[in-house]
């Protein structure tokens, strides 16, 4: 094509310490094009997006918009250059109204008037949302659309959507698609970052695939299908391992939940888990699975419903009672509420079992050492490293420390894991799955939540699919297809047949 690309990236590199996040990346986006950025976690597409949006400054390389070099040093400059980012992590302020949020960060004097904002909202299907409604009161999907509305109201030439549909319902996704096509028709360019290959195939004209910090190729989407994309992303098609299905031994349930609700994010969940059974809660972000685990761990003070663990009733909002009742919880976010990042591996790994290492509140060093040695061996972390700050470990090893904290504690009736392998490499993932299985084999009931399809299918005995705060269906692992789980977790209606385009996601 002879025309100047709307956006051109030349030789952009970025390293964090010794990690190369971007390695001489080049790509171009045409006017009126919807361009996909693909790649699995850590491939570099998020960093690329951040560079374009001015959040991260590259070490080398140039970014051109309509042939003019722009070097966005902050989000404000990026926007001045016509680049708008709709981030995965929403940048809305809950205590402000919709109107205030739409005006936030707009250049002085160029705040669109209320009528225009109303029009933008209406076009996105938000006609029922008032401009003066506080954003905190909107659903996640509505918030996502407000975020897109903000970018639309700014007349961006290049709009970057980072996983815009992760929390949306079908109807809302359709609205986003309409909006994106409308923008492209007006001559704007859209960069579309998504794990959902079906969406990419349906919506985008070209796709650039990232792997290990490099852009490995840009192709016309018409030439691609799911298999070829997956191959470009991974270099191979991953083969999952399956756990042999457990026979129903008729044991009394270790966990019995009736009518568990965490308003407004989770409604009316019933669940029974036998000792030794591994139940996977499958669903997209915001489906309510995290809330189930947090509520069971006593971390949701607003939870309602009846929870019985090993025959004892637990009251919601009492983490200590839950722990005393044999409930062990592992958070999804090890950085913010999992690990004590400034402290050593040793301190972290024994954090949950200090009372067991002491007599009348005084620590016995020998007991502590014994516990520590056992857990280090379990995780495979060399004992010589035990005094290093836990933050210096790789993601996989950090996660192992976190999981190990919940293991080998008496009593352990219920093991709860939220995203047990988020940000963990393949080897670490297998190790963690092995740890979880051992805990189950030792008699614990295991409930985990995961947004990763492979993990759900690999680890569970029973899969419970969730959507929009409710259970869609409960499937035994045997004979369960990925397509079924996906259909459940992206549509919510158990009867709907999966369409082929959604049969593959890569997380």
């Amino acid at each position, binding site marked *: 094509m002879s025309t100047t690309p709307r956006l051109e990236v030349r030789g952009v590199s970025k390293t964090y310490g010794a990690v190369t996040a971007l390695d001489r990346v080049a790509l171009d986006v045409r006017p009126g094009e919807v361009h996909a950025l693909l790649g699995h976690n850590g491939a570099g597409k998020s960093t690329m997006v951040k560079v374009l949006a001015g959040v991260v400054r590259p070490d080398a390389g140039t970014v051109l918009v309509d042939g003019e070099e722009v070097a966005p040093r902050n989000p404000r400059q990026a926007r001045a250059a016509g680049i708008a*980012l709709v981030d995965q992590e929403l940048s809305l302020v*809950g205590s402000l109204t919709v109107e*205030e949020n739409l005006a936030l960060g707009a250049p002085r004097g160029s705040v669109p008037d209320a009528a225009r904002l109303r029009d933008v909202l209406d076009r996105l299907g938000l006609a029922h949302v008032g401009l003066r409604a506080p954003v905190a009161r909107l*659903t996640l999907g509505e918030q996502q659309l407000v975020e897109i509305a903000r970018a639309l109201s700014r007349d961006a030439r290049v709009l970057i959507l980072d996983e815009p549909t992760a929390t949306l319902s079908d109807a809302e996704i359709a609205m986003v698609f309409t909006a994106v096509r409308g923008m492209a028709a007006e001559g704007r360019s859209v960069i579309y970052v998504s794990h959902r290959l079906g969406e990419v195939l349906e919506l985008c004209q070209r796709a650039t695939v990232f792997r290990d910090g490099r852009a490995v190729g840009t192709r016309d989407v018409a030439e691609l299908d799911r298999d070829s994309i997956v191959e470009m992303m991974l270099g191979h098609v991953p083969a999952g391992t399956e756990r042999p299905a457990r026979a129903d031994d008729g044991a009394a349930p270790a966990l019995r939940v009736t009518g568990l609700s965490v*308003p407004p994010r989770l409604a009316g969940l019933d669940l029974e888990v036998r000792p030794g059974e591994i139940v996977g809660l499958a669903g997209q972000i915001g489906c309510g699975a995290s809330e189930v685990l947090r509520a069971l761990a006593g971390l949701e003070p*607003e939870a309602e419903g009846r929870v019985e663990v090993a025959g004892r009733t637990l009251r919601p909002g009492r983490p200590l009672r839950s722990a005393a009742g044999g409930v062990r919880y592992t958070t999804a976010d090890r950085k913010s509420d999992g690990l004590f990042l400034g402290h050593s591996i040793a301190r972290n790994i024994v954090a949950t079992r200090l009372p067991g290492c002491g007599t009348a509140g005084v620590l016995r060093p020998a007991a502590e050492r014994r516990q520590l040695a056992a857990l280090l061996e379990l995780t495979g972390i060399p004992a010589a490293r035990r005094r290093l700050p836990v933050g210096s470990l790789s993601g996989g090893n950090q996660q192992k420390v976190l999981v190990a904290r919940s293991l080998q504690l008496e009593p352990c009736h219920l093991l709860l894991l939220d995203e047990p392998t988020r940000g963990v490499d393949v080897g670490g993932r297998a190790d963690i799955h092995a740890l979880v299985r051992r805990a189950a084999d030792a008699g614990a009931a295991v409930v985990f939540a995961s947004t990763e399809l492979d993990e759900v299918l690999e680890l569970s005995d029973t899969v419970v699919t969730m959507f*929009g*705060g409710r259970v869609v269906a409960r499937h035994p692992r045997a004979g369960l297809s990925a397509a079924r789980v996906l259909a459940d977790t992206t549509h919510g209606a158990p009867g709907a047949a999966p369409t082929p385009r959604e049969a593959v996601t890569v997380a």
Partner: protein
Amino acid sequence: MSVEAPTRPSPARRTARRTHTSRWSGLAALAPFGFAALMLVALFVVPAIAGREPTVFSVYNALQSFSGMALVALALGLTMIIGEFDLSVVGTYALGGMLAVELGVEQPVLGVVAAVVACAVLGAAQGWVVARWGVNSMAITLGGYLVALGLTGTIGDNRSQAYENYDVSGALNTPIAQVLSLRSLVALAVVALVVAVVMLTWVGRDLRATGGGRRASRVTGVRVDALVIGTFTVSAVLAALGGALQSYGVATATSNPGLSPLIFAVTASLLGGVALSGGRGTPLGIAAGALGLCFFAELFTTLVTPQYVVSLLTGGLLVAVTLLTTPTASRGWAALRRRTGARSRGGAEA
């Protein structure tokens, strides 16, 4: 589970919820003004019940103390809106008063300007540290408080200093229209200016955004650092102005006012609808909270209540208001609201 199972609230239910909550938040926004009005009424009714003669003079008195205190409350409240906390307002309050008294004998305005400039530098420095380095503001402003207090004591020779220019003091205190004075008018003008700038321009929105979601604000391009530095500077300026006004008014500058101005400022801000977690509140609300609190204090002066009772009441009020605005309490409120909301909805649907 049926195929038709609703996966999200139907539009009707959502609308119901929304109108319900907006009614609540509308009421909450009016609370500070209700409090001020209630206290004003109490200022006349309670003494009458207690057998004392209620006078308009007590309103004048309350407004006189409002002149200094409201500015300190505003100083602290603004930093609370952006999710920070400026302990040093008591220090700059004292320092501003002392500098104005020491330098403004011949030229009262010059004294105020000098006080304001000196405190602005201190405030800007604190703001810079908080914005750029992300140092906990309560900690760093504690240091700023000690510095300001030390400076005040050093300048004032560790005792109260009299302000020799009695003409100025007299002029400031002469009653205007029975309840007002030049002193309270100046304070009201400053309050009005802050209210206008914050509430009628983008400033208020960006301040609340900075307090409500620092990361989100930064990402959207709000000049968070500039706002934080600016707010701390304005905070110091307001506190210094309040101190200068107070010192001129009572013709004395104290070396150490203790923590009572701070207690007043926190209570007024919390009563005025500012959340400690940031992101909520307006200067008008803070001013209303301060006004109500001044009436409240004046009520006990009218009743000739011993100082310790006032101390107990202000301390108790502060702890009570703090507890009512904790995360635990607001969760309780939300649950209560939901329950009453559910009941009324259920009734409507039945």
